């Protein structure tokens, strides 16, 4: 094997610490003047790719990719400051929730990028915290007809095999597959680093390719229509019960038992 050519797709999302608010027309979540940052699962993906290289796994190249508005370049710079070698930005005009890519569109686009970049390992977040769809990695695996290991909590590369540990109910599951493959990341995989100042400066000099959807062959249009977006109902105050018996009878009363 000549070495890993890792592709890491990253998405710009509303920061995890911000409370999202639905717009007045109830068509989407407010994004104007809201702090955005890299989807936290994607930080894990970048970190894992960089750690593979630091663990002396032969890594030829780590490419960060993002499809999104012009500001998505900020998170590509962050990805490069964390250790990706270069970035690819496909600029999407997202106005009022229109023109946004759906998971299938992203997966089709990623397939083209994988072919062009000759990637043999794609590390994606298991989901992005804005739409919580959790589909892209699996769709990409299907489109490419590659092996996939989702929700990874540990990744080891041995020659051209990859061993992925995933946490499942009541234990761990260990999978082994041959490259090329798709991995999606879960929370306990690693702890992403903070971009250090010297690396932020280095990232400035790393190449960032700017493209549009027209540069890729295929139909990436949306197939779904958002009917309505609403806030979750406000949480009702709880009650205190005296003892275990009180709790059991209350649960019965609520039909939960």
């Amino acid at each position: 094997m000549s070495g890993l050519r890792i592709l890491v797709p990253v998405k710009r999302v509303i920061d995890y610490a911000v409370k999202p608010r639905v717009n007045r027309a109830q068509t989407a979540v407010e994004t104007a003047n809201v702090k955005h940052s890299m989807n936290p699962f994607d930080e894990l993906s970048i970190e894992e790719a960089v750690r593979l290289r630091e663990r002396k796994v032969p890594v030829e190249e780590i490419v960060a990719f993002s499809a999104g508005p012009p500001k998505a370049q900020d998170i590509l710079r962050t990805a490069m400051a964390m250790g990706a070698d270069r970035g690819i930005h496909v600029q999407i005009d997202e106005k009022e929730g229109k023109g946004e890519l759906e998971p299938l569109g992203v997966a089709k686009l990623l397939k083209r990028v994988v072919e062009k970049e000759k990637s043999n390992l794609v590390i994606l977040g298991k989901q992005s915290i804005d739409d919580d769809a959790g589909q892209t990695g699996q769709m990409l695996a299907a489109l490419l007809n590659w092996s996939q290991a989702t929700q990874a909590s540990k990744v080891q590369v041995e020659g051209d095999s990859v061993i992925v540990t995933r946490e499942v109910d009541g234990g761990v599951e260990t999978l082994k597959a041959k490259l090329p493959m798709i991995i999606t990341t879960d929370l306990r995989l690693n702890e992403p680093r903070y971009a250090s100042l010297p690396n932020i400066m280095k990232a400035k000099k790393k190449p960032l390719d700017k493209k549009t959807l027209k540069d890729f062959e295929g139909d990436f249009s949306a197939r779904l229509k958002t009917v309505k977006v609403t806030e979750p109902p406000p949480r009702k105050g709880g009650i205190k019960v005296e003892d275990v018996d009180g709790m059991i009878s209350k649960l019965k009363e609520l039909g939960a038992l």
Partner: protein
Amino acid sequence: MTSIAKTLRPLARAAASSSRPLRPAFSRTAPQIRCLSSTLPRRDVDISDIPPTPITHLSDTEALMAESVSKFAQDVILPKAREMDEAESMDPTVVEQLFEQGLMGVEIPEEYGGSGMNFTSAIIAIEELARVDPSVSVMADVHNTLCNTAILKWGTEKLKKEWLPKLATNTVGSFCLSEPVSGSDAFALATKATRTGNGYKINGGKMWITNSMEANFFIVFANLDPSKKYKGITAFIVEKGTPGFSIAKKEKKLGIRASSTCVINFDDVEIPKENLLGDEFEGYKYAIGLLNEGRIGIAAQMTGLALGAFENAAGYAWNDRKQFGQLIGEFQGMQHQMAQAWTEIQAARALVFNAARKKEAGEDFVMDAAMAKLYASQVAGKVSGQAVEWMGGMGFVREGLAEKYFRDSKIGAIYEGTSNIQLTTIARHLQKTYTK
């Protein structure tokens, strides 16, 4: 599904308790034009052709850096801030991490192992650190704006090669000017230097020296020819461990208690002639120059502190504390105070960032720096004091950080020139301008 959302939002970041937006005042929507910060530091530049930008506009690199430092400070330093204050000492791992993040060599060029950033980046870093812990902030401040800058400006190539890589990666610096006999009247210093066969010998004592517990590298001002009065002052580099160098006492303080402040004795401390910084008899000029710049750093420490104190209290008033059946932040009496405080913080920040940009652009910034430090320390004192009141009893106890911000704020009016000294500087400029 809600349970998944719950595990996701707070995510791996242990201290995700904060829902405060990053750098709330700095909108990053300004047009992408060449801004001052992309100019090289310490070069004469003509900025007349550059379209003016809002003072609060940051370059992409500065914005990315601000975000990264803020995240680092929140996750790594915040959980230790209270503990370090109580212990009156700096956690060595924090110092290590400051080096790892490149925060101790902000302006040191890459070829010397530094971060190679501009002056304003150092100011942003100092502000972000102070938002979380003003003690950690002053460590980075003194190290970057005084020590590193001194070597960058006046160090010989040999000194630069020897010290810059260390200062960027593992050696903390201290700046030794003040003495028991000389505070505001800094140039009345009594420490003496004499020439020896192959170097110099230093005798005397320093007081109030920040970072001295952690530092290994000391810039020491001593008089090489007292007959010349202050024009005899010369700057030297002294390493901890040089025979005759000793730390006599560590001060116990009101605020910034995790930052070490010590009395240092020099008893026949012999140093080689290579440890002369710049030229003999130029020391007083270096000291003035460094403190003029350094003041912007202290001003940023104070605006960062004010932001931190405000955000801490605002979070409480608008989310946690209810009285008379409503959040205390709903009372107009509270809201107006908070609006006033926020306005003053932003006014102070405008002074700070304007001073930084003027320095970077090669303009005269001395009066701007004095105004920034004066006003930022006043605002920090006022806002952190009010923030304690806004939180009531919870602001007064040592459980949270409100009372710590308040105590930490006082130093801003004292070091690197007291508020009176800043006023004197400002007045001197004004008098020069308005004397007919």
